């Protein structure tokens, strides 16, 4: 027990003597914990809000039968299912993507928005999904003297009511399935929750006004007790219906953003990892400086285990303070981020949902514990090294002098690097690139551990040759002779540079690939896209009218629908395109499509998610029937993370009978003015869809896409910047600690006649040399890690590939900044160390 008292005195003394160094180590842990915790809080809050929004739209039924696509199901299924003894109650639902006002691109002033339009039979719905039924305050199905469930009645969810600003009695004009209709707001759907943007009308109105007669998108079911109920329903389903359990819906909501969330979380942990390196570096330097003190304690009777306990207790305290601070900071940061960027941190996944931030105690403990473990892990190696030191040697100041004749061992580092290489070859686990991240961690650890051997190897030629200029000669010999000490300072530079380079290269590669892809997929002069037009777009007459607009050379129409292949995955986009399928392909089949199949192209994410390969034949339910598709090629698609299939429009129309179009690409005549043609096209559109129409020219669409890209990566850049700052702080503290620890050496040099100026030059060269070795090593390591990010982590997370692009000016600037920072820090610390104390230091005790 008394050993602990002694430990307490020693730790308090050390912290009092070096508050800045200790404070920085605490801050490094705090920042790492704060980032991890904040990202987790925002993600879980956003996911929970999104989940609540989805649940609101579904009305919390036991089970739902969903149409595979927005085209819906034949309503004959409704009586068939209603007759099943396992079904207690059933409620047919029309569910359509809809819009109000005028939809606009980001930055525009126009007001409007998307929402989900639900058509219900209120009497049926009351038994299955009562939350979706709009009631008057008195609980009657009427407001005032108006019969509520007739004609033009509409109930709005609280979120939609807020967005539109409408009150009961106001008129509400909305567009769905290419048609516009006017309703009267009857009230608010109180039980819809705060998140869902939805409106409810009578089912017959929905079918009649929006061209859905005989069609349903969903059937909500209340099942009888018993294990076989789901199976019985499943057995009764046609090919174009899919059973959606609450679990599958939750899993789909999770799948929507899982990879993005995990990647952000991993980035946050990178900052914590960098903090761990900083703790290690601070502790290792502190141990090196205090080695004679520890030796004295050993002589006085402190056992080795007691010394290890003392140093681990120091690490634990650092971690505890850092973790507590980090959790508090993280909560504040999460609140700020949700307020500024929304629940998806700018990722664009949950833009319909409002995010409510809570405090997750378990996660707070979890991330706090992670901070503690990091701080402890950073303390273990220095503690064991201190315990191994022979006290008698260390007391004479000999124990910490490495023998320049002994070469640092390289094999443990090479083993770590090899293990990292092997891990990078591994597959995704649970749909996530966990082995890829393990590979990056192993590469980083191996690269940092290789520093002493590498520094020795790189400096050997300079050390052999020597230099006539004394400062350079002394600097090189010091770095070559004591590479272990250099490695301590280098670890921070190498770790932060490598992580920074890896992220910068990945983002640059992604951005370049997205830009190239945009140019490739936008070959036309002008594009038209109808928002929220899944259930129906431009009729053939509308298409013909558009095609006759003056100034057009040619037009290609496209119909896009969403189709569910698996109930627990987000729907894939089926894109039927007129003319030839002319996408730039990443793989193509040699053979022609077999008889009885339809030629189709698939996107990379679809190939990855569903295991479809070029040359194979697969089934897809479109037009209510299983169709056989021949996969003729794959194309790179960054727009639809959950997969897309492209078919010839003629085949799609033949298979489905759906002759509408939701998109069009226009080639203009050479003399035509794009602005004039766009105005003419807008005028030629039917009035019902004019508010949904969005025109775009390739240049501006590219600019908007890249703006969205940069906004999505804004958080990434912020996390990266924090990792860099932590790394640079590590460099500064390492150098100043090492320089101050060498005061006796400087005193000796002054005594033998080396002027102060030359000592500062020597320190500057040492610092710059270390910075250069560290930055170049970090650059090399970072490029390897970038390869893992580009070739392993991204494909496994988002299921798309990209080309490697190296932002050389940025990388060169980074290396230069690190060299200048390292050299400058060394000189500044040197000035402090040489401020009169050095001459006395040769006689000092320690």
């Amino acid at each position, binding site marked *: 027990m*008394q*050993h602990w008292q002694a430990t307490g005195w020693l730790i308090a003394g050390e912290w009092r003597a070096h508050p800045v160094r200790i404070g920085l180590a605490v801050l490094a842990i705090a920042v790492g914990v704060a980032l991890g915790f904040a990202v987790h809080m925002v993600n879980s809050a956003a996911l929970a809000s999104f989940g609540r929004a989805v649940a609101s739209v579904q009305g919390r039924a036991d089970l739902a039968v969903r149409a595979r696509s927005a085209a819906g199901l034949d309503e004959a299924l409704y009586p068939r299912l209603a007759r099943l003894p396992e079904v207690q109650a059933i409620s047919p639902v029309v569910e359509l993507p809809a819009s109000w006002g005028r939809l606009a691109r980001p930055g525009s002033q126009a007001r409007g928005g998307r929402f989900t339009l639900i058509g219900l039979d209120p009497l049926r719905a009351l038994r299955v999904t009562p939350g979706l039924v709009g009631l008057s305050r008195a609980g009657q199905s009427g407001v005032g003297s108006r019969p509520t469930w007739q004609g033009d009645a509409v109930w709005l969810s609280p979120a939609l009511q807020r967005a539109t600003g409408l009150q009961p009695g106001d008129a509400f004009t909305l567009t769905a399935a290419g048609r516009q209709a006017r309703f009267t707001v009857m009230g608010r759907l109180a039980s819809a929750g705060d998140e869902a943007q939805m409106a409810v009308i009578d089912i017959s109105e929905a079918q009649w006004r929006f061209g859905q007669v005989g069609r349903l998108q969903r059937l909500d079911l209340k099942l009888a007790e018993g294990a076989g109920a789901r199976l019985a329903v499943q057995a009764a389903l046609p090919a174009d219906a899919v059973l959606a359990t609450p679990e599958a819906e939750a899993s789909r909501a999770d799948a929507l953003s899982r990879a993005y969330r995990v990647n952000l979380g991993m980035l946050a942990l990178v900052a914590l990892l960098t903090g761990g390196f900083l703790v290690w570096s601070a502790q290792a330097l502190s141990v090196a400086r205090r080695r*004679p003190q520890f030796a*004295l304690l050993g002589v006085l*009777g*402190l*056992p080795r285990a007691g010394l290890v306990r003392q140093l681990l207790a120091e690490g634990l305290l650092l971690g505890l303070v850092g973790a507590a601070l980090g959790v508090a900071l993280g909560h504040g940061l999460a609140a700020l981020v949700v307020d500024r960027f929304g629940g998806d941190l700018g990722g664009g996944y949950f833009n319909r949902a409002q995010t409510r931030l809570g405090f997750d105690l378990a996660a707070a403990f979890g991330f706090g514990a992670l901070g503690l473990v990091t701080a402890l892990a950073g303390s273990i190696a220095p503690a064991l090294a201190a315990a191994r030191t*022979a006290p*008698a040697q260390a007391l004479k100041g000999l124990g910490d002098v490495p023998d320049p004749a002994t070469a640092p061992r390289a094999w443990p580092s090479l083993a770590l690097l090899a293990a990292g290489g092997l891990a990078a070859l591994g597959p995704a686990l649970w749909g996530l690139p966990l082995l890829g991240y393990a590979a990056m961690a192993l590469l980083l650890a191996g690269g940092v551990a290789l520093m002493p051997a590498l520094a020795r190897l790189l400096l050997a030629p300079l050390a052999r040759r020597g230099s006539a200029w004394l400062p350079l000669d002394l600097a090189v010999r010091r770095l070559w002779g004591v590479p272990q000490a250099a490695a301590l300072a280098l670890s921070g530079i190498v770790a932060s540079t490598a992580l920074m380079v890896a992220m910068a290269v990945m983002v640059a590669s992604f951005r370049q690939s997205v830009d190239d892809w945009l140019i490739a997929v936008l070959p036309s002069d002008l594009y038209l896209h109808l928002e929220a037009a899944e259930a129906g777009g431009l009729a053939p007459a509308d298409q013909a009218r558009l095609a006759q607009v003056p100034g057009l050379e040619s037009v290609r129409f496209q119909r896009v629908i969403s189709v569910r292949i698996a109930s627990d995955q987000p729907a894939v986009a089926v894109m039927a395109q007129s003319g030839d399928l002319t996408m730039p392909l990443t793989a193509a089949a040699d053979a022609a499509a077999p008889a009885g199949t339809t030629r189709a192209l698939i996107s990379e994410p679809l190939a990855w998610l569903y295991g479809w390969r070029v040359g194979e034949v697969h089934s897809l339910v479109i037009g209510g029937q299983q169709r056989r598709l021949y996969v003729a090629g794959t194309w790179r698609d960054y727009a639809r993370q959950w997969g897309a299939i492209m078919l010839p429009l003629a085949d799609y129309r033949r298979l489905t009978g759906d002759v509408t179009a939701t998109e069009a690409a226009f080639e203009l005549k050479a003399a035509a003015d794009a602005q004039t043609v766009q105005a003419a096209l807008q005028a030629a559109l039917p009035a019902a869809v004019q508010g949904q129409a969005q025109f775009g020219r390739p240049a501006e669409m590219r600019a908007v896409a890249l703006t969205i890209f940069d906004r999505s990566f804004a958080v990434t850049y912020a996390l990266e910047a924090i990792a860099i700052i932590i790394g640079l702080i590590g460099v500064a503290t390492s150098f100043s600690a090492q320089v101050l620890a060498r005061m006796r050496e400087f005193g000796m040099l002054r005594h033998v006649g080396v002027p102060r100026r030359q000592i500062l030059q020597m320190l500057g060269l040492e610092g710059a040399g270390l910075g250069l070795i560290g930055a170049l090593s970090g650059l090399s390591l970072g490029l390897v890690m970038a390869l893992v990010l580009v070739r392993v982590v991204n494909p496994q997370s988002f299921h798309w590939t990209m080309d490697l692009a190296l932002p050389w000016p940025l990388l060169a600037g980074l290396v230069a900044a690190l060299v200048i920072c390292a050299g400058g820090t060394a000189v500044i610390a040197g000035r402090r160390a040489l401020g009169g104390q050095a001459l006395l230091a040769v006689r000092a*005790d320690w």
Partner: protein
Amino acid sequence: MRPDTPSAGPAVAAPVLAATVPAAPVLSAVGLTRAVPLAGGGRRTLFSGVSIALAPGEVVAITGESGVGKSTLLNVIAGLDMADAGEVLIGGRNVAGLAEPARAALRATALGFVFQAFHVLPHLSLARNVALPCLLAGMNAADALARAEATLAEVGLAGRGPDWPAVLSGGELQRVAIARALVHRPGLVLADEPTGNLDPETAGRILHLLLAQARDRGAAVLIVTHSEMVAAAATRVLRLSAGGLLPS
């Protein structure tokens, strides 16, 4: 309380070894041999067949040329280094037969140390520096600090307990080191060139203080030195050479 140190705990009342085994020597070393590895391979013998015994209260000086192994001999006696042959008994316990924690406990209770470079911890107050051995020997903090203040007073630093080491002169620092070596009342004090960093006048005063304080507590003192003044103050002087430890 540690089971392997019967004299540890609140009863650090001294002199531990003398009280336990009054008639036995404080230190008994027999046939000690130590060789060190050479850079080019092979080994160089520092000393061989060294035997020495110290009675309670005895002051023995060991002299010899630089590099002959005087400090190494002290380290072997303290259990900080291991002899290649021979055995060291402190209070009747074979040091080489003890595990590292037990050797550390033995040093904490039975030995005091004074060094040429004073080795006073810069970030602890003088009182805490002096109280450290008591804590390591198992005493509670309040008692340890009270005894440290008293011992500081005995070495001429009364009321200086709260001061920091940075404000002390070399002579004062060595007084602190002497207080630290004796505060837990060990049976044996090992001193390695205790006056080597001091001017002759201060050295004389410090030596006198060390020997007087040790004598008052009945502790034996084994001093390694080059100083004739120190050797002259010892009750016995032995010279270490490759041939062994012989009377000077």
